[in-house]
């Protein structure tokens, strides 16, 4: 019999015992729904965690430094990894890194030790430039005040401990002004008024000129995001990266470059942070950067073990979800076995009219498959709703705790396909026994049956 006819007959048979078959299908749907809900929670939590992690910049950022840098901090120099000569981290290198595949952005580390004046009292601190992209990182969640109004604003965000030094009431600092004193590099001999960082190409050294800048305090934050990683210590005053760059404050590597008499009269960076599109691309990107002749460093291992944790977590959730589906499978077996008893005569008639055993078997098989398919569709829908409901409930709770809402469950397309395939496959397995029993029915006995 052709599949179109088989499906016709199967659908017709399913309609004839609509209540029982609908209940069986509902059983499958509940099983699939629990599976989908469990897995969507697993996937959702995983996405939430990796989103937070990538926002933090810890797992998708590669720190690039030149070889032979002072900034090894005791780490062994990995000379053997590349045969290329050390290259300066200048503007050319920055463009080259920006053009690598899967790179979102490349920004320099601007950090310098300096003095800050507030109410005419001096305070020593480390200043760090924050790229505009850090606006969306989790690190500034829950801060007092707001993030920088623009990438070039003369604004500052203070770290809370530093703010406490400045004032007994740190929150009152927002809106006040602070004066930054720093040392500006000026190339020698330079045409006096050059302001572009790239224009410093004239001579063999630079002079250092003390300068001042008034910054408006716009916020107070608990800790510096990604503190300590890639930096020369915790920065306690954060300012927009572009603003910090244009200061051309003397940095740690400037003196070294002078001493070395390196070819570069251009501005070089002590280090560059390269952000990858996702943590999974960090490994290959890191290798590529090393091949270019730079040192590269990332925190890969931590994200790997996190992925392992979530795989196990998904597996456990999947097992609990599958239990419900196993119960639903028994429901299909039961329904089809009942159907054979009820339809003995019909099976006998079909065989007398020339149906082969395989036709009867396939008919029951298709019936099981159709129930599984519809059960799968409804199950995915129910599961999605269940996930939304759990997310909604969680967010109501989080709101009461004054926390930001989260997206707890996620139903990606592969989960939809997987659930449908799984539902149909499980139903077909459930149909194996009833179908073969129906196929083996002796037509003479079946026709005699009243």
């Amino acid at each position: 019999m052709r599949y179109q006819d088989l499906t016709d007959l199967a659908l017709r048979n399913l309609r004839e015992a609509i209540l029982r078959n609908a209940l069986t299908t509902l059983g499958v749907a509940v099983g699939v729904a629990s599976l989908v809900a469990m897995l969507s929670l697993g996937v959702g939590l995983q996405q939430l965690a990796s989103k937070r992690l990538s926002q933090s910049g810890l797992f998708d950022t590669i720190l690039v430094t030149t070889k032979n840098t002072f900034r090894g901090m005791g780490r062994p120099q990995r000379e053997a990894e590349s045969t290329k000569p050390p290259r300066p981290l200048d503007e050319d290198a920055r463009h080259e890194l920006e053009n690598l595949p899967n790179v979102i952005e490349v920004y320099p580390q601007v950090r310098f030790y300096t003095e800050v004046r507030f109410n005419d009292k001096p305070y020593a601190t480390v200043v760090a430039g924050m790229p505009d992209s850090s606006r969306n990182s989790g690190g500034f969640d829950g801060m007092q005040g707001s993030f920088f109004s623009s990438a070039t604003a003369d604004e500052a965000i203070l770290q809370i401990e530093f703010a406490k030094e400045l004032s007994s009431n740190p929150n009152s600092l927002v809106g006040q002004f602070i004066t930054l004193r720093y040392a500006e590099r000026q190339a020698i001999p330079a045409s006096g008024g050059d302001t572009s960082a790239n224009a410093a190409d004239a001579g063999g050294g630079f002079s250092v000129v003390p300068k001042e800048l008034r910054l408006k305090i716009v916020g107070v934050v608990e800790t510096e995001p990604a503190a300590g990683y890639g930096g020369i210590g915790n920065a306690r005053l954060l300012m927009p990266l572009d603003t910090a760059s244009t200061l051309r404050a003397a940095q740690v590597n400037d003196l070294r470059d002078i001493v070395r008499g390196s070819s570069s009269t251009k501005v070089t960076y002590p280090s560059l942070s390269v952000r990858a599109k996702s943590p999974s691309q960090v490994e290959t990107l890191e290798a590529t950067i090393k091949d270019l002749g730079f040192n590269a460093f990332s925190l890969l291992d931590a994200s790997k073990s996190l992925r392992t944790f979530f795989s196990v977590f998904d597996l456990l959730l999947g097992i609990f979800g599958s239990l419900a589906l196993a119960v639903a499978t028994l429901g299909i077996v039961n329904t089809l076995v009942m159907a054979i008893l009820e339809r003995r005569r019909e099976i006998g008639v079909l065989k007398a009219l020339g149906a082969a055993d395989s036709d009867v078997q396939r008919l029951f098989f298709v019936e099981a498959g159709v129930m599984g398919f519809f059960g799968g569709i409804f199950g995915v829908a129910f599961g999605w709703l269940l996930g939304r409901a759990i997310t909604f409930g969680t967010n109501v709770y989080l709101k009461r705790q004054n926390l930001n809402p989260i997206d707890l469950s996620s139903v990606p397309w592969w989960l939809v396909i997987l659930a449908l395939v799984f539902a149909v496959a499980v139903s077909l397995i459930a149909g194996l026994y009833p179908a073969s029993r129906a196929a083996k029915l002796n037509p003479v006995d079946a026709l005699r049956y009243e």
Partner: protein
Amino acid sequence: MPDTQPAVQLDHISRHYHMGETRVRAVDDVSFSVTPGEYLALLGSSGSGKSTLLNLMAGLDRPTAGSIVANGADLAALSPLDLARYRRNTVGMIFQSFNLLPRMTLEENVELPLRLAEVERAERPGRVREALEHVRLSHRIGHRPSELSGGEQQRVAIARALVNRPKILLADEPTGNLDSATGETILSLLRGLQTQLGMTIVMVTHERPLAERFANRLATMGDGKLLSVVETTRGAAQ
């Protein structure tokens, strides 16, 4: 009769069952042949083995011993799939209790063998109508069996048996559930098919007078054995 090859040739056919410890010889060493185009009635009391013999000829059952050659093939040696093909294409079958599927319309009931035989969809409506016209029920094509009288239901069953254009029609007590007048109509219809379409008909019945009027030959069975095969006056007249 123009065809020399028998329609069905039974050669020392036996069919034994085991019922607990006892062995039941439902059919015991029966040999005879059915001539193409003839109308044969299988007579006998209940339990005489006539229905078992019909089921063997229908390919619904297999003999314990002996051979049944129909349409040039030994049914006992056919694979289950080939036997299903034989049931589908070579024979048509009608039953005492009609065995129409109650939730299907007449059209769907008659179409069923066409689905099994994988006849093209486009061809099916014409074939169904043609079969229903043979039994003069084409005007009730959309009805369900429950809306029909017993005689009409049996006519639908005949249409269903005819739709794949088989050579042999096997009827198991076709008038058993019908009043005598309706029964006669059905048997006339069968005789019409025999004469118009040249079909071979084997009919199991226990109503000897009716069989004598409509069939060409009467084969009588008792205790699983073939007791006699005689020509009727109708058979002798041909």
